[in-house]
């Protein structure tokens, strides 16, 4: 079946088709499918675009979707797609502005804590897909010491998978429950209180989350910049002069949070 070209150029075809996909306005389709008896079938393209984009957001923000329910999530996600359409063909990083979008759009509905759930979902995804790092092990420390160096002068960093986030609400416990059981107890309360969290992927590929006290947070922030243990310890001791450096360092080592710089 041959159909004569109606638009003046292929460029017009792409522009009209794009305008339809973004707006859903079927008037643009006259330039795209000029001989079609009905343009109803063209909805499959716009629906496909929206569905794929919304599904990608649901995959990236599964706990937010559980929290608000599928219908409301679809409503929010569609609004997000219209404001921030995908730019890359890989959907894994799509939706990076979702936390801010939720904060801007839902604050007046007393749902500002959703931003924090979204930031946890985002950090989990980052940890899961991040590149592998060379993790510090006890043998590395022995080798360092056997070479005549003091352990406190060892420079370390966090693995590529690690993300440090500071939330405005204490949502971590609820997020973990939702992530594992897909439901929350009815009496769950979300307190408005700062929460520092570290999210990373351990050596068994499990993504882990740990809440950090102020001094622990200072220690890990210093490590994030790739510093010596001595400097990280001094940062922690400024916050809490009784900070148990040795036990915290051992815990970081045992749980694969330390990487070789």
């Amino acid at each position: 079946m041959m159909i004569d070209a109606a638009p003046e150029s292929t460029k017009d075809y792409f522009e009209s088709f794009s305008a339809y996909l973004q707006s859903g306005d079927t008037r643009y389709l006259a330039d795209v499918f000029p001989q079609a008896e009905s343009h109803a079938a063209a909805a499959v393209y716009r629906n496909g675009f929206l569905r794929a984009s919304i599904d990608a957001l649901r995959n990236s923000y599964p706990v937010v979707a559980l929290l608000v329910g599928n219908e409301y999530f679809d409503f929010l996600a569609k609004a997000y797609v219209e404001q921030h359409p995908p730019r890359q063909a890989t959907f894994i990083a799509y939706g990076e502005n979702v936390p801010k979008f939720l904060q801007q759009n839902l604050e007046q509905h007393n749902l500002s804590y959703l931003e924090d759930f979204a930031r946890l979902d985002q950090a989990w995804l980052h940890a899961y897909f991040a590149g592998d790092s060379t993790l510090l092990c006890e043998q590395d420390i022995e080798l360092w010491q056997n070479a005549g160096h003091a352990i406190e002068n060892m420079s370390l960093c966090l693995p590529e998978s690690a993300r440090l986030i500071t939330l405005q609400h204490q949502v971590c416990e609820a997020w973990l429950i939702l992530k594992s059981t897909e439901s929350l107890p009815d009496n769950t309360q979300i307190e408005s209180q700062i929460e520092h969290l570290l999210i990373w992927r351990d050596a068994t590929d499990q993504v882990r989350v740990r809440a950090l006290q102020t001094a622990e947070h200072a220690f890990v922030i210093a490590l994030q910049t790739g510093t010596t243990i001595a400097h990280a310890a001094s940062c922690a001791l400024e916050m809490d002069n009784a900070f148990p450096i040795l036990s915290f360092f051992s815990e970081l080592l045992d749980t694969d949070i330390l990487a070789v710089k």
Partner: protein
Amino acid sequence: MSKRNNRPGLPLHAGLGLKPEHFSDAEKHSPKNIWFEVHPENYMIGGGPRLRGLLSIRERFPLSLHGVGASLGGPELTDNAHISALKRLVDLLQPQSVSEHAVWSRANGVYYADLLPLPRTRDAMQRLVDGVNHFQEGIGRQILLENPSNYLPVISEMDEADFLVSIAKQTGCGLLVDVNNIYISSQNCDIDATEYIRAIPADLVGEIHIAGFDVDPNLEQRLLIDSHAADVAPEVWRLLDLALAQFGPKPVLLERDDNLPEYPVLLEERALAEKAIQHSKAILQNATNNDDRRCA
């Protein structure tokens, strides 16, 4: 890159579209002659269990990277970031085949996440030729180019088969013939599926796809949707037999992207495709034997 290269392609067996959910089953419970196909866009990541899982699969089985996001016929050439990410995967996985679609999906920096049809005009053909050349040069490989599903008749100065054959000849790419897409287009746009297949020279074909479709919930049988969410329809199996008779034995892939059944169920359906390939091989062998006898 105007000449077809001689890189060994996919084995003459049936393959399966593979999802991370089935990695473990695929490693433990797959027939020896199987091969797998994945969408590279799902593996453009830093690392972690998903990429490691695919590497482990690749160590044991032939692999095809079947892209869905290059927008080869679009108003902009595939962006360099996408090509670089794919090239890294190609270097890492050394797949037997890399394929893409004869469609567009990106304009003015927006990715529309669907396989959108191109007009079949000379101007659109030139864009697609440029797009395929740019892409092949970027990844350093010949690709296979897949025919799209059509939901509405597009502006056209030529048939789709002629359009694709011409592009293959101009760029040196091969063709991936999706018989499910041909069936869908034949029903939605009133084209002759048999004529379409007969218009494609066998030597251009590097792979055949089969998949399931759904009917549109609103338009029902008036619109078939390329969903990859159902079993392969009897009409599509018949078209596969016709394609194998026309092209001779070729690697055939069973695609399944949604409504995913258990792995053994997919293997059963894939076994039907393997049977069709073996039948095609037997016919070719008989023909060769007969020719030999005549010569003797």
